[in-house]
């Protein structure tokens, strides 16, 4: 029996920005469990970018499992992806290699323009969990789902951190401009007040 998990996330950035950030999201404050990341294959075919990345991550076992299974402390994960800039679609397909009999987790993500607001990006996610480890299948699958949900939260937060760093560099300038305008306006008001003071003094009934 296979367990499934589906979710949708919304990124308040354009599809192009999300595609650019995909390659730069590690490291981030939420990715301490990711130990290394490498591109192992990449080519452009018919205008689409095909990439394969290898990541190594820490591999926490459930406490009860540590007595029965001696798993490696790190696991390897392969992420295949296809970026289609013409149709603005980006798909990733991630699976663990090694330890598949213990627990296989496969995740597919589709990043597309949000149909309700083309300036934002929707991420539709599916995950499959399967274990064929005799006697612990359901417990391992359940453990896998819970750990995965926690990782999805970290993944989205981490991705947003990268997007902010890459594309929010306009904000400090906007804030400075706003401050300058506010200061200029204040100066204009002060100047106006100083010029009209004698009139205000004579009209002392103003609230």
């Amino acid at each position, binding site marked *: 029996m296979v367990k499934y998990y589906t979710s949708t996330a919304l990124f308040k950035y354009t599809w192009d920005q999300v595609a650019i950030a995909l390659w730069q999201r590690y490291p981030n404050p939420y990715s301490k469990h990711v*130990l290394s*990341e*490498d591109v192992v294959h990449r080519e452009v075919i018919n205008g689409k970018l095909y990439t394969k990345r290898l990541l190594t991550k820490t591999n926490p076992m459930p406490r009860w499992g540590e007595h029965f299974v001696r798993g490696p402390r790190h696991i390897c994960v392969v992420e295949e992806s296809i970026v289609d800039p013409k149709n603005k679609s980006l798909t990733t397909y991630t699976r663990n290699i090694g330890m598949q009999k213990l627990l296989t987790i496969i995740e597919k993500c589709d990043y597309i323009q949000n149909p309700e607001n083309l300036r934002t990006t929707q991420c539709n996610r*599916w995950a499959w969990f399967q274990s064929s480890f005799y006697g612990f299948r359901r417990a391992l699958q359940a453990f896998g789902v819970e750990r995965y949900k926690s990782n999805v939260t970290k993944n989205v937060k981490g991705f947003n951190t990268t997007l902010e760093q890459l594309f929010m560099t306009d904000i400090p300038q906007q804030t400075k401009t706003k401050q300058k305008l506010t200061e200029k306006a204040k100066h204009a008001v002060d100047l106006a007040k100083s010029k009209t003071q004698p009139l205000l003094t004579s009209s002392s009934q103003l609230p």
Partner: protein
Amino acid sequence: MNSIGEECTNLKRNYEDCFNKWFSEKFLKGNNEDDCAPLFKVYQTCVKKAIKEKNLDLDCMEKDVLGTEFEKPPPPVSK
């Protein structure tokens, strides 16, 4: 982010600097001309050697799944 092979991390960073620039300034605008091939080649040689030394399951890693018959279908929609 570090490479799986410590000795490859600098080569990886050189390649990534080139790739990120190419991706945003050329690829997303419809220009596929590869500016980074020489840097990629040097980086790949190093990484492939590091992966072999770690005794990883290369066949499993090199298998293509996305877009093939081996890809999992979407899970059933619960009613």
